């Protein structure tokens, strides 16, 4: 008899123990995947992105989550490598059951994961620049991106050249996804502006000396040079130019948007012109600009938490995660509903004012860029 009571009471205890979560069930967590190049040669992109994502998640959860649901980030490091990126995305979808993914950091890795996204029907918000990631939009139903468009960056550069009467230019691009996509855009849009590309050179992602390529450019008689890449080569090109006594203006892509690049270029970096988001020159953005408030608060939060200057790339993580969080707030974590919600988002972010639509999965136009110039290791807005 005693034994029976014991068994019975044990059974009840066990039952109670297992049923507790159902009795006092909290809302289920929202699982979001993040795929960033935290280490490797593109860690200058991935590290601020990871920092930003973690900072935002902490802030949201401290304030009680999204409608009471805790936000759980699953952060994967791609090391900037295509295979790792694909594996990470597969793992996030199959094992972690995420409802959406932000990242990858690089254009190459973003392109590599597109087939997986297309068949698994999970929305992805890429932090990479190349436009092919979201075009043609019919084939990219589940894919969005937050950085400004390559073609808009090219147009801003060519606008500036046109204003200065520069016709013959040279281009030098990295052989990465971002560099190759930029090279195509530079060549394609040149005709529209009647710009003549007299030299077209490339370099590998790990190259540390571009003197040979620059010498060819010098001999070709170009009146300006555009460098398009994301790797540290961006600060080596101006130094090599200085060595060869080249005095033509140097334009760089929006990939130059990290103050470390300008610092690394040193004295040779003075006068570099590039299209960049307003985040880089927050102090010089006028008070009445709709982005001003977002920019100031993100910059202050980031710099207070991580003791390093804010960069465009962290801003991409800020934009993509907040767009996703806003959608989660409205429709919950059903991937299909999230996708539809993101497609109709209007959002004021660090990169610009987003207006997503079924025909535009980037949502920014060329006003998102400001022409910036390097002056004594700082970015300043270029005045006409």
């Amino acid at each position, binding site marked *: 008899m005693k034994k029976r009571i014991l068994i019975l009471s044990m059974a009840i205890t066990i039952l109670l123990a297992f049923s507790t979560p159902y009795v006092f069930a909290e809302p289920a967590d929202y699982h979001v995947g993040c795929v960033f190049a935290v280490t490797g040669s593109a860690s200058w992109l991935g590290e601020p992105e990871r920092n930003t994502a973690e900072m935002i998640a902490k802030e949201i959860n401290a304030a009680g989550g999204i409608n009471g649901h805790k936000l759980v980030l699953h952060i994967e490091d791609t090391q900037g490598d295509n295979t790792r990126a694909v594996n990470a995305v597969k793992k996030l979808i199959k094992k972690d059951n995420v409802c959406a993914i932000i990242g990858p950091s690089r254009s190459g890795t973003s392109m590599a994961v597109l087939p997986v996204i297309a068949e698994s029907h999970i929305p992805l918000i890429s932090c990479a620049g190349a436009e092919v990631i979201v075009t043609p939009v019919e084939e990219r139903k589940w894919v969005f991106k937050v950085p400004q468009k390559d073609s808009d960056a090219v147009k801003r550069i060519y606008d500036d050249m046109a204003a200065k009467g520069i016709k013959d230019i040279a281009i030098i691009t990295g052989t990465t996804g971002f560099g190759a996509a930029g090279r195509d855009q530079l060549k394609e849009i040149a005709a529209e502006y009647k710009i003549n590309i007299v030299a077209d050179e490339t370099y590998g992602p790990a190259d540390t*000396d571009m003197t040979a*390529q620059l010498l*060819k450019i010098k*001999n070709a008689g170009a009146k300006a040079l555009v460098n398009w890449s994301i790797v540290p080569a961006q600060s080596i090109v101006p130094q090599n130019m200085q*060595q060869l*006594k080249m005095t033509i203006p140097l334009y760089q892509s929006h990939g130059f948007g990290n103050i*470390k690049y300008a610092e690394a270029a040193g*004295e040779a970096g003075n006068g570099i012109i590039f299209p960049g988001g307003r985040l880089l020159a927050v102090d010089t953005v006028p008070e009445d600009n709709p982005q001003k408030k977002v920019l100031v608060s993100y910059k202050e939060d980031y710099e207070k938490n991580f003791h390093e200057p804010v960069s465009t790339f962290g801003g991409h993580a800020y934009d993509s995660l907040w767009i996703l969080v806003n959608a989660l707030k409205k429709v919950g974590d059903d991937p299909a509903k999230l996708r539809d919600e993101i497609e109709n988002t209007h959002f004021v972010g660090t990169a610009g004012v987003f207006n997503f639509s079924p025909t535009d999965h980037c949502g920014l136009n060329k006003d998102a860029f400001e022409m910036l110039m390097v002056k004594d290791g700082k970015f300043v807005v270029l005045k006409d």
Partner: protein
Amino acid sequence: MNHTDGTFIDVLQFLILGIQRGSIYAMVAMGFNMIYNATGIINFAQGEFVVLGGLMMVTLTMAFNLSIVFSFILTVLFVIVVGILMERLTINPVKHPTVLRLIIITIAVSIIIKGVAMCFWGKGSHYMRHFSGTAPLEFFGATILPQTLWIFAILFFVVIAYIIFFNYTMTGKCMRACAINRDAARLAGINDRKMVMLSFALSAGIGAIAGIIITPIIQMDYARGAMLGLKGFGAAVLGGLGNSMGAVVAGVLLGVLEALGAGYISSHYMDAIALVILLFVLFIRPSGILGSSEAMRLKEF
């Protein structure tokens, strides 16, 4: 300026660039050879010594604002200590040192050094000021950075010091004896284990010097070691493994081929051009440019 002049200046510019690259490959290759001669193994952590030299120099000059000369000496000493520790802690205690075992140990050490360097210096690229300004100098119409002159001068000095050490000092001669025949050297009363330690110290020192002088030009990050090591290894093989003068010639040659390849064929295939030529040399002369084929047949690896 007429066309021929322009071509001449271009060639000169590529040559300067190539010799500058090649000088670093040469120094890395010399480091490989020293350890190869003393132990018969390839030290795959050689590239890491270069990285440590570069990064340490950046810290001392940029963060602590020490003078170039003082930081130079401190950095070289620091990397030498790392080299000695590596030998004492990982190579010396191995009970049955076979070539394969030791090589795998050096690979492990290279991964550890890389990881530790990443923790200390972070993942970004580090830059430092040039030794004496960045204003380029004119040289027959081509331009040359003062830093490049420093690189040439220091390579020259290292080669001279190397020759004096190995030909005119007792310790140097002992090391050569060990390289030629370790058992016979031991019978003659030479402490061969000490010579192995010394070879690690010296090769770490040369690696550090290479890292220090190239960092102002190419910047430095924790992951550079593998590529520098590979190119240096190429130079060492091309020059004939174990032959340090061959390594210097081959290193400079490799650098020049790369520069000319990038300038006249395509910057896309720069690395491939140099390595294809390396393959051809090895098909025709497996012992390397200056290596002796007879000596090679006697070696284990």
